[in-house]
């Protein structure tokens, strides 16, 4: 794994992400500043971590989506390179047009930080091969704008093409509005792009990767990626 973590001013979970990648893959990721115009040679995974890029005083992710480094990310993605966006990263990828839809204010209009349950809808992708299909995992969320919305046609396509990878659910894996804390359409927590190489998700798997900290349900995502990239190499 040769991961590049993008750093826009105002992001704040880059260190959490770097630790998770290091723990799982044994390799240090490279931090790539927003003003760069190229990714480090040989980058096989681009990660856009969470935070508040440029303060998110405008629409979340709107400014970051237009930063110089995003051109390099677009071309990486166009060549089939893997891209993972978490939380603000998901918002940025949507704003950049790499993923469809938009993240709106949480239904209760408040920031919410808590552990949520996710149902892994598919296990046959590079991002989820570390899980079983329909496995329920527990990971934290921490966002004010995570309410996924897209037009009916887009959502129908996402569902039809199996591009919803994670859905908010109850502890037993059942979809229940009471467990959809932000009110996302179809309880969508994470989606793939058309070619299946770009994932955006609101929850933070990088905060649940250590046994010693009480929960390792987020590990599967990084282990799956590491394994996939090892095979590909």
């Amino acid at each position, binding site marked *: 794994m040769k991961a590049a973590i993008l750093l826009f001013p*105002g992001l*704040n979970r880059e260190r959490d992400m770097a630790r998770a990648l290091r723990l799982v893959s044994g390799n240090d990721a490279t931090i790539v500043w927003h003003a760069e115009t190229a990714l480090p040679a040989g980058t096989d995974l681009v990660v856009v971590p969470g935070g508040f890029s440029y*303060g998110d*005083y405008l629409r979340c992710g709107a400014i970051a989506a237009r930063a110089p480094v995003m051109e390099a990310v677009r071309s990486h993605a166009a060549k089939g390179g893997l891209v993972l966006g978490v939380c603000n990263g998901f918002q940025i990828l949507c704003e950049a047009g790499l993923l469809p839809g938009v993240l709106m204010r949480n239904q209760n209009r408040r920031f919410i930080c*808590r552990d949520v349950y996710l149902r892994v809808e598919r296990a046959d992708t590079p991002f989820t091969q570390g899980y079983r299909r329909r496995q329920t995992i527990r990971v934290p969320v921490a966002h004010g704008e995570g309410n996924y919305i897209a037009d009916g046609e887009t959502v129908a396509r996402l569902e039809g093409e199996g591009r919803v990878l994670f859905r908010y659910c109850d502890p037993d894996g059942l979809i229940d509005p009471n467990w959809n804390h932000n009110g996302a359409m179809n309880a969508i927590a994470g989606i793939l792009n058309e070619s299946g190489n770009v994932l955006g998700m609101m929850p933070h798997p990088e905060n649940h990767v250590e046994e010693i*900290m009480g929960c390792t349900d987020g590990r599967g995502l990084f282990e799956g990626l590491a394994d996939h990239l090892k095979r590909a190499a």
Partner: protein
Amino acid sequence: MSRQQTKNANEPAITPDLVAQHGLKPDEYERILKLIGREPSFTELGIFSAMWNEHCSYKSSRIHLRGLPTKAPWVIQGPGENAGVIDIGDGLAVVFKMESHNHPSYIEPYQGATTGVGGILRDVFTMGARPIACLNALSFGAPDHPRTRSIVSGVVAGIGGYGNSFGVPTVGGQVRFHTRYDGNCLVNAMAVGLAEADKIFYAAASGVGMPIVYLGSKTGRDGIHGATMASAEFGEDAEEKRPTVQVGDPFAEKLLLEACLEIMANDCVIAIQDMGAAGLTCSAVEMGAKGDLGVELDLDSVPCREEGMSAYEMMLSESQERMLMVLRPEKEKEAEAIFRKWGLDFAIVGRTTPTLRFVVKHGGDVMADLPIKELGDEAPLYDRPSVPSSPRPVIGPADINPPMSNAEALETLLATPDLCSRRWVWEQYDHVIGGNTVQRPGGDAAVVRVLDGPKGLALTADVTPRYCEADPYEGGKQAVAEAWRNITAVGGTPLALTDNLNFGNPERPEIMGQFIGCLRGIGDACRTLDFPVVSGNVSLYNETNGRGILPTPTIGGVGLLDDFTRSATLAFKSDNECILLIGETAGWLGQSLYLRDICGREDGAPPPVDLAAEKRNGDFVRALILDGTAKAVHDVSDGGLAVAVAEMAMASGIGATLDTPHPGVPAHAFWFGEDQARYVVTVPAAAVRDILARAEAAGIHAARIGVTGGRAVMLADERPMAIDKLAAKFEGWFPAYMQEPAAEA
């Protein structure tokens, strides 16, 4: 040495009215005249008002603060710097402080709270530490007061809005409601940072002719006279003071953090001071005065957000996210490049001088020329008259007739504003960022891993204001003892504390009596528990229309765990574990929540605090945690024993059956009395005999009071209470009050 007469045609003439508007008393103005030997200019008057207000000068509190113990072998820096610093071994230091932002938060809850958090974070990273946790202690008015709901909503959103964006986990704190905060809420914010012990940065400048650099956001007209406003009581005109509240920009602060830590790592910094209360004035004076140097500022170089700002406005602006630094001259270019990279303003705005004068120039004119040491050192110092609070009667357990069954009382208490779950609050704070939060909010103390471990910090914020009101001395002791106990209950060794002393108008002798009494109690507890004060903040004049808040000396405690994986939590771990009560139970109902919220009487003397017993019992419990015998631990505080056990059951979903109360203590007093120095501990049945014998040998009261198991809490001789029903009540109050459906627990 020449003394330039400072005159400027555009500045208003000094009149008694103008002096009074600056919060300076006539005798304080006389003191200024004597000190400088002439009439001050308008800008100088502003500078004096900024330096000599209560908030910056501690003029009413200084002589009393001297009595607090501030030293220990592990204390690197005590009070007097931006924050306290303690050594935690391995070459690491913890930097922490708590500070109030009460007045601004009442006037403009969201921005008041955000800038409170921003200010305290700056205090910590100014010293070279990366913030790793925030806590807060919030006191709101009565739930049925018309403004309370919107203040709660704004303050909580503001704390989250700043900390979440800045990227620091907010891991713990306190929330209370009381009618005495109706017109004056309290927002006390604490920040904790981690630094290398030999790389702490201080405010004292050194070297003559060194460049003084301004960093961060631009200066605007916001917050002018904020510190002066915070040093006066409120009248009906509180709303009109809105323009004195600053506006927070967590994004700018995040950039400032990263830029500051980067230039510190590159060894560019000689001295650094954040611009907090009284902005440029206070920071520049402190840097010079602490280094025995003069300072000359050229305001033409100050980055301004608005056109045409006067010297007076620039010197008093409290615009946020700004820093002042003395750089190593040879590193100036390097430092500037780092700041430019982070998109921050960088300007050389002055030099250090050998004159011990504070000179401010603007547009070619000298706007101020004052003796720099005297601005701080010669601030008025008051030994204000005080009267001790009159003692309240001791209420015996048998004096109170229970108005309802104990089961009903427990169910009722768990759904009261002061005892119910604070989930609605802390779920708005990102408490997991950093990936180091071992124990999240809701326990006795938060536990945060240090770097990659194995060390951990135990963090808490505590005070029981109703005890302080009823008996300032015992209340002061109790605040420290409870912080110490909460750290102990997770297995931490308490190391040091920061105090945030919130009181009413010090010009009233009864308020000074409360202040002095609480400080005596805090000092005695700190000495006995070996728990020194390393930083703090005093907030006086917390009153509206002559009615003071409850005395609220918030204690922010920091403790150390050598191995965070050994920390204890309050959740029961399994069925059939024995429940032990450590500490003596006399059934003290005076000032208890049972007496107030069940019997409708806010009355009596508060529970006395036996500091020797605190130490003995706490050390005993900590040893049980560290040797792995204790499975679940919870301190007994507000609401008493039954509430503590119910919280342990709700946190785990495992029930408990409790035995008949101690002989001689009426049941209601046994379950709900608030006797101090107590813990509930669960242990394997096989270990009980040995533990009780060891306790007896150590002179510690310990008793087996029940066993875990089932799905209900059963107080002896009472009907069983299903945990899920208790939890529904416990979790229900806050969302219902804030008019929302309860969240899934």
